[in-house]
């Protein structure tokens, strides 16, 4: 086919482009992914029995704010990197904000604690499994985010994949909060961070393959 014929083909019968199509794609996929993570957390790990009473403490919401902020910033990074010619830019700085915040909080917590309590504050009871639990919960959100991101056009698929992986793990960590018994910022600053960065690394690894277009 000659290029002129291709131009005719592409331009014939064009209709108005729906600019909200990608947004709708995400709106369709993300609730499914998040629901998948919630089902897994309830079936595999179980909802923590004191969830109702702990939900009335500010520290619970501070903990929830961490993955929520990560997910929002990563979503912004995905939406920017999914458009040709737009760099991650300030979205990466916004991604860093919750991590820096929780590290500071962890630092302050440790500074205020007696030396003997510091290691237990960092390790909690679940440090061995926490990152892997988040990784497992990321499976449905990862599929959802990458499916939706394929509606975009990332020209830097590795970076876009990393952002998409972080978006997925942020959502998964939100789901994990209904189970996780740890209430110390010192714990979150290490194990939640690792749990969220693992899927981001996997996203960076798979991005060039999954987001190719």
């Amino acid at each position, binding site marked *: *086919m000659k290029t002129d014929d*291709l131009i005719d083909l592409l*331009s014939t019968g064009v209709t108005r*482009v729906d600019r909200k199509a990608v947004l709708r794609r995400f709106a369709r996929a993300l609730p499914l992914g998040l629901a998948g993570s919630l089902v897994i957390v309830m079936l595999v790990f179980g909802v923590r029995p004191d969830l109702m009473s702990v939900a009335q403490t500010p520290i619970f919401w501070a903990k929830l704010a961490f993955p929520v902020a990560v997910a929002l910033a990563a979503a912004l990074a995905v939406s920017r990197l999914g*458009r*040709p*010619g737009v760099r991650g830019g300030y979205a990466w700085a916004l991604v860093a904000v919750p991590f820096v915040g929780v590290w500071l909080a962890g630092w302050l917590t440790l500074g205020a604690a007696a030396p003997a309590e510091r290691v237990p504050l960092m390790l909690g009871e679940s440090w061995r499994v926490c990152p892997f639990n988040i990784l497992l919960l990321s499976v449905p959100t990862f599929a959802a985010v990458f499916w939706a991101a394929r509606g975009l056009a990332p*020209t830097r698929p590795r970076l876009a994949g990393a952002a998409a992986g972080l978006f997925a793990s942020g959502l998964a960590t939100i789901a994990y909060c209904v189970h996780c018994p740890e209430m110390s910022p010192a714990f979150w600053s290490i194990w939640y961070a690792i749990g969220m960065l693992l899927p981001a690394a996997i996203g960076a690894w798979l991005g060039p393959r999954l987001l190719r277009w």
Partner: protein
Amino acid sequence: MRTRERDSQGGMDAIAVPDAMGYPHPIAPVLGRAAAARKLAASFDAGADIGAGAPSRHPEHTGRPLHPAEIRLKALFVAGLEGDADAYRLFLQELTRHLRGYLRRRIPQWHDDVEDLVQEILLAVHNARHTWRPDEPLTAWVHAIARYKLMDFFRSRARRESLNDPLDDHADLFATPDDEPAQARRDIGKLLDQLPDKQRLPIVHVKLEGRSVVEAAQLTGLSESAVKVGIHRGLKALAARIRGAQ
């Protein structure tokens, strides 16, 4: 390698690309077409080379905010997004001229591949056209797509050459005389024929025969939305097949 260098440039690129794409190449009838293409190629090149170099290369242009090609292409493209087929055709035609000039200059050693790449980029621009936002320079958007496809070309080329027998002899040099440099080597029409019917038939009826979606729906027995989805998915599948055929 180049992408990596560019990634490490941080914010520089965001400034460099519109700068390099946007300003230095008036596409007016005043300039000959070849001269315009050369100028565009040079500016594309500046953008595709290490981003930090671009602004300093055109210091005289940095003050002007918009460029004729940007304004003209953008007007046509925006009309195309609203469903104006004629404007969209003009946009693609003008873009094709820019792309040819860019690619002939970027990959002079593979001029046989230029037309294939032009077609691939046109299809990519079409399939990604919903990702452009009005607050973004259109030329930067197009440039990013062209560069992405060019990098893809380099990668698949390297892979092919590492797989294939690298030995050739004098016979290869005379094997294919090249009378039509502007001829595409890959036939998109044949790739189109390989698509499943529910994608192929909507494209054939609407995009090749120029029928309406309603008519295509009656001819195929599909619903109108299935016809639209078939076109959309079919053109994406076509791009995927082009990648597979490389």
